[in-house]
């Protein structure tokens, strides 16, 4: 099956998303509070913000104006001092960071502001060069890179034009080129596509995606542009200084892709599949650990994502199961204790669905229940 060929890769991505290691974390905000003003005029604008973003993630931040997303963005970009809480960006704790290191850190960040902020006196190329100058790149390396990015953004004919001779969208694209030409590890973009038409907006988004996937560049975009929501791995919604929701959208999508390939889920409608995927979590088990123990009450339903398990009843080897197989459904359907023990053979990753969620899905989807009972029947 052609689809199956892509599965390991998708799964890898999913696992990466689900279990980021400390060094994969690009942003780690913990209990961040922020205040404006002093004394009586002191007003809290950020409340206990917590956010973990993995390297290579594309995060879209939404929220009404005044919700604090811009403040959070300036904190992430080291443009404001962290007042309370811990904020780690690219492995560096920002709270109390000395100015010299702040400046060093800024060189690894790409800023794309809502206004283009280009020097009127410099050409497109020269404006972009301001970013490569800072890295001390030799001209032989910097110049082709600058030209390639500008060409990519459709400015090949405008390389030596000054901002005065460029349209609003073209200026914004030059600013975007300046924000990414130095291959930053983190890009902070404020409405980067607002001034762009659909086509160049799409090109910019595609470049973002490449930077994220190829270079592991983390990208935070504050936007109201619905056209680009689909690139987000995570959508963070802020209201009144609080992170109201923080959803890994890609995780659900990836999970659906994987589940679809398993016979059990193949017949489900996309809506049901999505609701299953949404409730599923991913668990990892070390070799030899017991995932399910005979005689214990059933709590979860499992689908093997990676690795192999052994099933035993009363110490007697029954069978081995691998990726795509599922187990644990019997006790949930029959409300009886586990009838077998399942042990991980090697490293095992399983999608799991809690009992209540499992029963809810079974109740709403006749085909799912039928599939399960069919399989149960066949197994006996």
């Amino acid at each position, binding site marked *: 099956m052609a689809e199956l060929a892509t599965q390991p890769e998708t799964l890898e991505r999913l696992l990466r998303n689900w279990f980021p290691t400390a060094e994969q974390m690009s942003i780690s905000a913990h209990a961040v509070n922020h205040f404006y003003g002093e004394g009586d005029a002191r007003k809290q604008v950020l409340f206990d913000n917590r956010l973990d973003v993995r390297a290579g993630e594309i995060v879209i931040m939404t929220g009404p104006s005044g919700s604090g997303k*811009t403040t959070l963005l300036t904190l992430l*970009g080291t*443009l404001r001092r962290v007042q309370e809480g811990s904020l780690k960006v690219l492995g560096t704790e920002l709270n109390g960071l000395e100015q010299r290191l702040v400046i060093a850190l*800024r060189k690894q*960040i790409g*800023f794309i502001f809502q206004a283009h*902020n280009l020097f009127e006196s410099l050409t497109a190329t*020269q404006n972009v060069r*301001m*970013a490569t100058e800072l890295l001390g790149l030799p001209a032989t390396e910097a110049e082709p890179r600058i030209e390639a990015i500008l060409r990519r953004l459709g400015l090949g004919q405008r390389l030596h034009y000054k901002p005065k001779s460029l349209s609003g969208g073209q200026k914004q694209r030059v600013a975007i080129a300046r924000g990414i030409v130095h291959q930053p590890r983190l890009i902070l973009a404020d409405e980067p596509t607002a001034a762009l038409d659909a086509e160049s907006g799409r090109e910019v988004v595609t470049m973002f995606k490449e930077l994220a996937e190829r270079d592991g560049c983390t990208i935070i975009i504050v936007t109201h542009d619905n056209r680009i929501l689909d690139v987000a791995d995570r959508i963070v919604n802020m209201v009144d200084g609080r992170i109201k929701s923080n959803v890994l959208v890609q995780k659900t999508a990836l999970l659906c892709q994987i589940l679809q390939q398993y016979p059990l889920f193949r017949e489900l409608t996309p809506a049901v599949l999505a609701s299953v995927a949404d409730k599923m979590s991913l668990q990892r088990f070390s070799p030899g650990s017991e995932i399910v123990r005979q005689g214990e009450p059933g709590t979860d339903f499992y689908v093997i994502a990676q690795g192999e398990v052994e099933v035993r009843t009363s110490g007697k080897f029954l069978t081995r199961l691998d990726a795509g197989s599922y187990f644990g459904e019997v006790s949930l359907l029959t409300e009886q204790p586990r009838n077998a023990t399942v042990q991980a053979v090697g490293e095992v990753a399983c999608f799991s669905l809690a009992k209540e969620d499992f029963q809810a899905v079974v109740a709403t989807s006749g085909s799912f229940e039928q599939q399960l009972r069919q399989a149960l029947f066949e197994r006996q």
Partner: protein
Amino acid sequence: MTVASVPLAWKNLTHDPRKLALALAGVAFAVLLMFQQRGFNHALFDSTVELVRRLDADLLVFNRARFALTSELRFPREILERLASEPGVASVQPLYLENKLASAHRAGFPARPIRVLGFELSALPFRDAAGEVPASLATLQRPDTALLDRLSKSYYGFDLESAQQGTEQAVELAGRQLQIAGLFSLGCDFAHEGNLVMSSENFARYFRYRGLDPLAVVDLGLVKLTSGVDREEVLAKLRAKLPSSVELMKREEFEQREIGFWARSTPIGVIFAIGAGIGFAVGVIICYQILATDIADHYREFATLIAMGYGKKYFFQLVLQQAWLLAILGYLPGLVLSWMLFQLNSSWTGLLMNLTWERALTILVLTLVMCSLSGLLAIRKLLAADPASLF
């Protein structure tokens, strides 16, 4: 960090030619002010010592109490004549000066004091501006004749044309008829509005009140040394033979002493220093305005550079580069204008307005310092740019 190869300072400065022209006009104005004030200051000193510079002498003898050329304190001629026989001395020459009592009166004009220089025509100790001995000095052997400084103030009423031709014009000096036999060129200073040159014989005739022998006291003794002698050595030996009331100096030393008097003992140096200081301050303010406006105009762009990770050092370099470009570009038209104005001033006032390389260089350095100060003041605005305001 190396200086950025994007010449941002230059690009920002030259982006808008109209703005640039205004900025340069401002700096050029300050340069002009400084040049004028320094120019007047130098003119005072130059004009005062111009006579000394023209004298064809190695050493000068004068009354030790004579604090300045204008003070009219003299010394006996015998002292000077005694020096003539000393080894190493080629010749001595007395120079007689009269100013306060030398009233020149041209018919139809008010009488005014004029400086009269008297010396022995046998050896001409006087050089014209070009370093040449005025040919017309020979005509001074006739009684009651003098040469007129063509740069003398016009309110004396002298007719330069007829003076050039030596034709008669009704002029009285100290109540006695005088014939202007020709012209020479020396220049006025703050104490003297005109000059006459005459032979010592004629000088004695006009200024009898100087004593029984009007030529018995000398204003300045001019000593020429034989060529090849060690000036310092001869100077020391001669000095030892002179009474304590008389001083002997190299001509250049005397020049510096004279300048020193005007610079230190009168407020004139201070006044012109204040004038130049005001020019400097005006320049600092103008240049600051230009730089600060430029920073304000590019506030968002500079804030973006700060966000990108450009440090203080870069911005100091940037603003100072811009300041120095302004300084140099504004200095050049300022220099040309100043030179032109010097010529005009000179012809209006008769003062010597010399524009030497050294003085031009001094003003250039002052201009650079001026713009640097402005840059250092303006950079605070740039460093205060808050990149957090950009999101």
